[in-house]
């Protein structure tokens, strides 16, 4: 039983009792944390809007005997106002939160996942840049972090290098690009393949700084499907708002 400090991003909240909420956060040093914010639903609450999903906050938490911690204090580091005020960006923000929620383990710190989520939210909040590729790039990077990154330089089935064969298809269960002889799954354009390589090969900042190329939608669909195969569940946040 002790007080501890940490920083985290609020992933989702549930109503609890009359005026409380359970807040689920992914934190820098304690992994996924579920904590109670007492009285947060009252208009005069000291927390106010600080513990809304998407908020990046510095917290003082009390870890008691129960599974749920208690939030003592919360300060905002960034509330990503520009994401909240744009329907397109906010729906993409939801999908980042959903994937982070699925991948983060309770009480098991994963600094890289945390850093990537904060980085993705910062990229998404930059109004001068197109938000289309932020979530797909985050999904792809998460897959690599999970050890399920796509095979891109050789045929994922026969192992022939790209210099010897043309990679023309992408199979989600095989987890990578396939040559003409082994082709299964969906076709993939050379441009899309190059874009995925750029995203995963350290040129993400450059990709996000430029307007999305024509194959961006193809990569976005691929990243979403690949993440769904990895998680073995549908991404509700992507599917339920597909028509917005």
């Amino acid at each position: 039983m002790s007080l501890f400090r940490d920083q985290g991003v609020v992933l989702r909240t549930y109503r609890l009792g009359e005026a409380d909420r359970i807040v689920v956060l992914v934190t820098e040093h304690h992994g996924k944390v579920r904590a109670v914010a007492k009285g947060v639903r009252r208009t005069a609450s000291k927390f106010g809007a600080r513990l809304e999903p998407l908020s990046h906050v510095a917290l003082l938490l009390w870890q008691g005997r129960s599974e749920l911690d208690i939030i003592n204090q919360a300060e905002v580091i960034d509330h990503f106002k520009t994401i909240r005020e744009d329907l397109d960006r906010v729906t993409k923000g939801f999908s980042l939160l959903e994937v982070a929620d699925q991948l983060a383990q309770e009480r098991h710190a994963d600094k890289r996942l945390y850093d990537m989520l904060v980085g993705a939210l910062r990229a998404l909040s930059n109004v001068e840049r197109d938000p289309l590729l932020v979530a797909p790039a985050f999904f792809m990077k998460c897959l690599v972090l999970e050890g399920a990154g796509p095979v891109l330089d050789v045929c994922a089935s026969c192992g022939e290098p790209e210099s010897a064969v043309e990679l023309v298809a992408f199979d989600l269960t095989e987890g990578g690009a396939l040559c003409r002889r082994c082709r299964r799954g969906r076709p993939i354009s050379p441009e899309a393949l190059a874009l995925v390589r750029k995203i995963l090969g350290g040129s993400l900042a450059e990709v996000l700084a430029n307007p999305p190329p024509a194959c961006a939608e193809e990569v976005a669909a691929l990243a979403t499907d690949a993440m769904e195969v990895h998680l073995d569940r549908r991404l509700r946040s992507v599917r339920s708002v597909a028509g917005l």
Partner: protein
Amino acid sequence: MYTPPLRALIDELGRLPGIGPKSAQRIAFHLLKVPIEDALRLSDAIVSVKERTTLCARCFNVAEGGELCDVCADDRREATTLCVVEDPRDIVAVERTQQFRGRYHALQGALNPLEGIGPEQLRIKELLVRIEEEGITEVILCTNPNLEGEATAMYLARLLNPFGVTVTRIASGLPVGGDLEYADELTLGRALEGRRLVEP
């Protein structure tokens, strides 16, 4: 430990929101002690609310017996202003202000992508039908000022744009009797954005 009827009562009470096993036991023993008329009044109230209460066919507020709710049935309400809320409980909250004389539309929830609630799960189609049928001129988006409510409001604003109606969003800011020192940045920022001229 308990007789079967008492066990059944404790189990049923324990299913209610916010009532744990201990509270359920306390209420059950309280009901054992009260006169039979009091207990019947409670059971009758539960039965009649389930039998006689439906959702209003027009605005999805709670209504009695498959008819229009009190607000929709009242001819003195302004027919051209529509206040869109998430839940019938929000209608009660707005009514308490005594500042609104128009009609309502309860969406029965808010967009919540994390729970898989999209536009199809809400009464949005019905709202669009009402705009034309009832000659609505102003729609007030009165969803909760949280992430889901804001997303719903932005979505509706986009959807209502082609109808040529005035679409307004309720203001958000500091609660009356509040304290600036404790206000969070988001709320205080909104309060500043929404400041208005003071008449001398």
